[in-house]
């Protein structure tokens, strides 16, 4: 636990770990992200929600240096992303994987150490220790010999979290961490993230507003523009701006902490207006 040894100290001076300023990014003439500003501080636990196609994955890609911004600056731990990303543990969407791939839980988790071992360098016992720690942390050490394809969706997600943790990152970035698991498993994954947040800064993106907002410390909305000011609840303005049309998510059980009544009213108002117009 070398890299993240002093969580209390970090908490006190609130180091900025991710800095995004006036970011524009996209894949063609039409920008997917527009004028995005984001400041992430050590031990934040941020949930960014937004509609599909709103730019959530694009934002992560930029933070990971997988997509070059068309404009703006992005730094991670004060460095440009290409080098700063070594401080990030990335957990992609589970659906992106080929689950027939013949690989064991252990070998998947060990990929989290690749950044520490460039080509022609072998894994060492220090790597084994870090991988074992990470798997233990997510309660998957006993299943280390299993093939990844033999696991349930929730177990698989834990393995990918362990892979991210194996590099002993300062920051965890997660893309839709609960998109392919049932609500019970989803809860257990958020509980795990909450525990991990004692030592690691976490930012996740999801379209699942309800689950996200009951566990994170702060929330933001992303739909081309990012509405995030470090607040712990969504304001009606944010929701109105981010979701430019009514969304079905609002209908099923949204926690009160986030969805203050007036937020729901705002959406109701929005729906009424839509109906009037059509």
């Amino acid at each position: 636990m070398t890299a993240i040894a002093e969580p209390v100290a970090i908490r006190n001076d609130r180091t900025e770990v991710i800095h995004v300023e006036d970011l524009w990014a996209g894949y063609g003439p039409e920008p997917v992200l527009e004028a995005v500003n984001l400041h992430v501080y050590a031990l934040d636990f941020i949930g960014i929600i937004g509609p599909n196609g709103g730019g959530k994955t694009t934002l992560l890609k930029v933070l990971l240096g997988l997509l070059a911004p068309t404009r703006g600056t992005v730094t991670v731990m004060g460095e440009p992303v290409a080098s700063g990303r070594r401080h990030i543990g990335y957990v992609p969407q589970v659906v992106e994987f080929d689950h027939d791939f013949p690989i064991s839980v252990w070998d998947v988790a060990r990929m989290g150490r690749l950044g520490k071992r460039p080509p022609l360098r072998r894994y060492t016992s220090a790597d084994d220790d870090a991988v074992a720690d990470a798997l233990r942390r997510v309660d998957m050490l006993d299943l280390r010999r299993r093939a990844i394809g033999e696991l349930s969706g929730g177990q698989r997600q834990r393995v990918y979290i362990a892979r991210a943790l194996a590099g002993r990152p300062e920051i965890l970035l997660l893309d839709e961490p609960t998109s392919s698991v049932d609500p019970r498993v989803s809860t257990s994954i958020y509980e795990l993230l909450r525990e991990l947040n004692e030592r690691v800064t976490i930012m996740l993106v999801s379209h699942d507003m309800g689950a996200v907002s009951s566990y994170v410390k702060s929330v933001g909305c992303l739909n081309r523009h990012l509405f995030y000011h470090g607040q712990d609840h969504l304001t009606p303005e944010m929701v109105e701006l981010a979701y430019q049309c009514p969304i079905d998510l609002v209908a099923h059980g949204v926690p009160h902490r986030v969805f203050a009544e007036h937020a729901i009213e705002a959406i109701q108002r929005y729906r009424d207006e839509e109906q009037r117009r059509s």
Partner: protein
Amino acid sequence: MINALAEALQFTFMRHALLAGLLVSVACGIIGTYVVVKRIVFISGGIAHAAYGGIGLGYYVKYMVVPVLFAGSAAARDPRPGYWPLLGAILFSLLAAALMGHIQRRTRQRADTIIGVLWAIGMAIGIVLVDLTRGYKVDLMSYLFGSILAVERLELLVIAGLDVLVVALVTLFYKELLAVSFDETFATVQNVPVGGIYALLLGMIALTVVMLMRVVGLILVIAMLTIPPAISGRLVRGIVPMMALSALLGVAFTTLGLWLSYAWNLTSGASIILVAGTGYLLSLLATRRGAGPSAGPRLGATLNRR
């Protein structure tokens, strides 16, 4: 069968053929495993067929260029094609691998169409260059369908050399190859040189394809590259066991195929592939009820793993 095989082994060409089958199976088992798990069968087919352009180039250079440039030299007078077609094939397949790999990684749309076009262009270049090589009748069929019975000492040495190279490279870059095969995005984030490793993989596919061309022929290269790993993927788990079993299966298929071809006077490449194909069908039947590791998980995860 044993007697027939012993009898066949009295011939040098038969010993060479068996040895070629053995050597090729090693590279094939290793590289074929990557082709199957990374699902790059199509691009491998493209590389194989584009390599045919190199065969044509080899003949053209040997019979049209060398006699002009080095008139009177021993090389110019030698009537045999020698190593020229092999050299051309290596050059073209590496070139095709680089080009197709670049296209697949850089182009967002229709990479498969472009690869398909290159696939055809490569072959067409080969045929036209052979047409332009006057005064020599090239045995095209031997490259299309293989001529394992005509493998010479020199070629055995080249194949063995390529084997050593493939094994060395895969050992050196094992963890990067695994990471790039499993999850390119994560590998990139971990600062693995993904472009370079992918190029290395395609380069090794190119070399393996050239070796295989002699044994089973261009048209059947893909079968030989994919069938053994497809079978072993159903029987064992893990990349390394898959490679080992694939190599063993390759040896079994080439030996048995060779024997069949010898016993009934059949085309050797086709016999080898038919044996391999039969093996694949048998493995499907044998592991159909979820007995194999890759058939098991989906059932196992819900029924008995909880």
